[in-house]
């Protein structure tokens, strides 16, 4: 079997399983908090519209249209959860493809399959790179909490991910003091530059809810990455075994 096919098969299976499990975990962890925050978000919108003069409502509506507030969105309940499950599965498959790419290069170089335990270590690295590092500067946010412009946050998030993965790579694979120092500096760099943030944040969402959300997101993500790392390595080892090469 070609390497690409092994990677895709292994990633689809692992991503599907992990996506479903994480969807279930989110139903107890993050989703109830999102729904509670949306009550505050909608109340604030309502208040805003009620207090605005008619002219302003028109302008507001127009602006909303420009941003596509009228765009389709899944209905609350089953439909919404179904799309959440789909997006979780796709995210799982996407990150599994990334992990499998590394597994494939590693096992190609050493001639040995990646063990589930080594896969777990890669998963934890993914947790550090994609959740911990960007989350330090841009903590997980609930709906209804204002934040800096989206694009600037996406750029900073991507920078943090790239710098942290490069930094960890230098530390783990170079094994020299200068490389380790450069790695640590690289990991710190995006945080020294600082994530984009608003000078003044006004929200009805209670800070206790926001704090619970940070904990829920971080724990859910830990489950996601631990499972994804170990399951992906196990399924890749299966599809990439020498007999089928």
């Amino acid at each position, binding site marked *: 079997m070609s*390497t690409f096919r092994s990677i895709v098969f292994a990633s689809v299976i692992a991503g599907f399983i992990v996506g479903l499990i994480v969807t279930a975990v989110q139903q107890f962890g993050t989703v109830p908090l999102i729904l509670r925050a949306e009550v505050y978000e909608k109340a604030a919108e309502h208040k805003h519209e009620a207090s605005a003069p008619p002219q302003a409502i028109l302008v507001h509506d127009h602006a909303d249209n420009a941003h596509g507030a009228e765009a389709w969105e899944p209905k609350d309940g089953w439909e919404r959860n179904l799309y959440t499950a789909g997006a979780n599965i*796709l995210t799982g*498959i996407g990150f599994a493809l990334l992990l499998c790419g590394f597994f494939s290069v590693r096992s190609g170089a050493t001639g040995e399959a990646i063990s589930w335990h080594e896969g777990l270590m890669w998963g934890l690295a993914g947790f550090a790179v994609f959740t911990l590092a960007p989350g330090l500067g841009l903590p997980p946010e609930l709906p209804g909490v204002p934040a800096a412009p989206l694009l600037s946050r996406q750029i900073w998030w991507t920078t943090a991910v790239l710098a942290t993965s490069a930094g960890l790579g230098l530390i783990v694979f170079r094994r020299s003091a200068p490389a380790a120092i450069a790695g640590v500096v690289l990991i710190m760099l995006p945080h020294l530059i600082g994530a984009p943030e608003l000078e003044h944040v006004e929200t009805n969402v209670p800070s206790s809810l926001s704090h619970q959300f940070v904990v829920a997101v971080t724990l859910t993500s830990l489950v996601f990455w631990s499972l994804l790392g170990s399951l992906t390595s196990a399924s890749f080892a299966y599809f990439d075994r020498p007999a089928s090469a």
Partner: protein
Amino acid sequence: MSQSQSAQAQHLPVATRQVGRLAQSLMAMTLGLFIVGVVGFSHIDVIHNAAHDVRHSNAFPCH
């Protein structure tokens, strides 16, 4: 263990096939990043709305 290693070593691809393995791995990784990019970062409203709860739950920048 060493026997299986040497058996595997005989099956190890030659240089060109190792390059092939690297290229295929990179292709898969690019595909993976593309999928994550669309689900987590696309500014298209319909995609944002469908993946809304996942973006928040993964702490991807949202709204």
